[in-house]
């Protein structure tokens, strides 16, 4: 089920399901893709609130809006507007970057943070590519890097209605707007991760080819007390590729939160 929520001049399309502790989930750069079963899996133990980012799905993208900071402030406003209390803040890939940007600013409405293969920080030197150039490789190569089983990642575009294709095209353009340069990261973010003052669970697929091998360790080192769980048979999108194990890992974490 999705509904429309107006926040700070942006109209958000928000997927919503389940009952329990509120869980604000921020989707990857590849879009929300609610049909992949991850919402149902998370909704067994949580009230999932999953907005489509501005410029994705049916969410609006005002002219003045254009940075990862903008999205972070927008969702902090959303959390206040929905009066979230002791909620879980979760994000995957690009959404993980946004969740981290929120968490270094204000964690007052959240009891815990889940970051699934987040982008957003720079780890290596100038010649190192921490994050694969997803826009410089053929789609087939991207799927091989991003999925343990690339066949699962394929989308039969020809079978989709024009409205959905337009939403995909719009989402890709929006991702470029937010993350083209510097590529999918904020050079300053890593230095502020120490400000994250709520329990943090990192989740990574065991076959993630999108980020470098040291990337998850860098996140763990920078966020005080962060734990790392590896999901088997999953690439860069464990919540899509292995939603059951992903949801179990999230519940393991959230069930221990105050």
């Amino acid at each position, binding site marked *: 089920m999705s509904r429309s929520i107006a926040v700070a001049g942006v109209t958000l399309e928000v997927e919503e399901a389940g009952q329990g502790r509120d869980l604000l989930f921020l989707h990857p750069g590849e879009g929300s893709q609610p049909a992949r079963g991850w919402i149902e899996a998370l909704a067994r133990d949580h009230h999932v609130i999953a907005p489509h980012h501005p410029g994705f799905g049916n969410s609006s993208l005002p002219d003045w809006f*254009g940075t990862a900071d903008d999205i972070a402030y927008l969702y902090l406003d959303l959390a206040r507007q929905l009066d979230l209390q002791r909620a879980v803040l979760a994000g995957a890939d690009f959404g993980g970057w946004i969740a981290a940007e929120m968490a270094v600013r204000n964690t007052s409405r959240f009891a815990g943070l889940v970051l699934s293969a987040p982008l957003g920080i720079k780890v290596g030197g100038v010649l190192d590519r921490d994050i694969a150039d997803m*826009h*410089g*490789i*053929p789609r087939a190569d991207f799927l091989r890097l991003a999925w343990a089983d690339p066949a699962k990642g394929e989308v039969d*575009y*020809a079978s*989709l209605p*024009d409205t959905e*294709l*337009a939403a*995909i*095209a*719009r989402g*890709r*353009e*929006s*991702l*470029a*707007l937010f993350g*083209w*340069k510097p590529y999918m990261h904020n050079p300053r973010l890593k230095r502020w991760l120490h400000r994250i003052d709520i329990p943090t669970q990192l989740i990574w697929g065991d076959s993630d080819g999108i980020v470098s091998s040291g990337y998850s360790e860098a996140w763990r080192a920078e966020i005080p007390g962060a734990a790392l769980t590896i999901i088997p048979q999953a690439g860069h999108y464990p919540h899509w590729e292995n939603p059951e194990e992903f949801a179990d890992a999230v519940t393991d974490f959230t069930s221990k939160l105050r």
Partner: protein
Amino acid sequence: MRTWYFSEMAYHPAWEKGLARGSLRVNFPSENIDPEVAGKLLNRYLDEFALCDEAGIDIMVNEHHSTATCMTVSVPMALAVIARETKKSRLLSLGNPIANRPDPVRVAEEMAWLDCLSGGRLEMGLVKGAPYEIAPANSNPARLMRRYWEAHDLILKALSTTTGPFNWEGEYYHYRNVNIWPRPIQQPTPPVWMTGMSVDTGTMAAERGHVVGTLLSGGTAKPMYDAYRKRARELGWEAGPDRFAYAAIIGVGHTTDEGLRRADIIADYVRTAPVVAEPFTNPPGYNSIAANTMILKGGPRANRFVTDRNGEPINHRTASVQQFMDTETVFAGTPDEVFEQIKTFNARMGGVGHLLFFGQGGLLTHQDAMENIRLFGKDVAPRLLELNVPARAAAE
């Protein structure tokens, strides 16, 4: 109709390797270029440009990056050389890809400098640039045209302001003391050109009165020109042929066969230049949502580099010179034949004031290139100057 000769100054010796790798651009490593050979070729190409002055035709220079198809990395640099070697030809920069340039004020400075150096012979193209130029510049393809228009406005203001400095605090560009020295001879600015292939571009160019050019595809040119004329009329003025430009490959010879042979060799550029690794052909945001919806539906379109009169793509890799002639990508034959072809094209388009004469693709020998320019300058260009607006268009 004025004629503007241009050449991309290609590094053709690497083409075969590039074709074998499936990409001549962006990710084709520079170990495939011999800089000594490059230097010789650049000098040869510049000699071909210089000949235009005595042949009585104007000159156009463009630029591309990270490619074996074009060694001109900086239009102002090439035009600076050419300005010193010519006296009469007007010099068209077509142009500066301003949405990929971090510093528009620098662009304005270079254009003003060139206008001074050349005695006011500069024409100034401000272009969006091809999709595969995004990666070498690493410019953001999202909101590209918004950035383009801010750069455009800033460049024109920098060129035309004589009582600076002025302040510019925009969305993308920030300066507190814009005050360029020298300023251009041509006031308020040298003539401004744009390029494009769409009705939208035609409309936007008309709103500013700029010259708009397109290349190699009669099928996409006409709707753009028509949109321009329509918008100009809505705004209360009549757009003459001098607002429109068209680029075509041209081969002239003393015999039909000689003209066709030259055109066929130049056309190897078109058979080669669009070959680029797929991810760089359509960065997200470069094309409209509607266009990308169609691409997702049908897979990457058969390359649209060249289209026929109905706007349908033709296979640019394998097309014969005759097929290219059918699509108005190529005009070729004796001077009389070429003149007639262009005259017919001009009538069909409703009057095009500028012909961009693509006369060197890379593989044409220096001798052939020079003869092509001389013959065109002597026996075709003067007659094109006499071409008026066709009656049919005027009556529309």
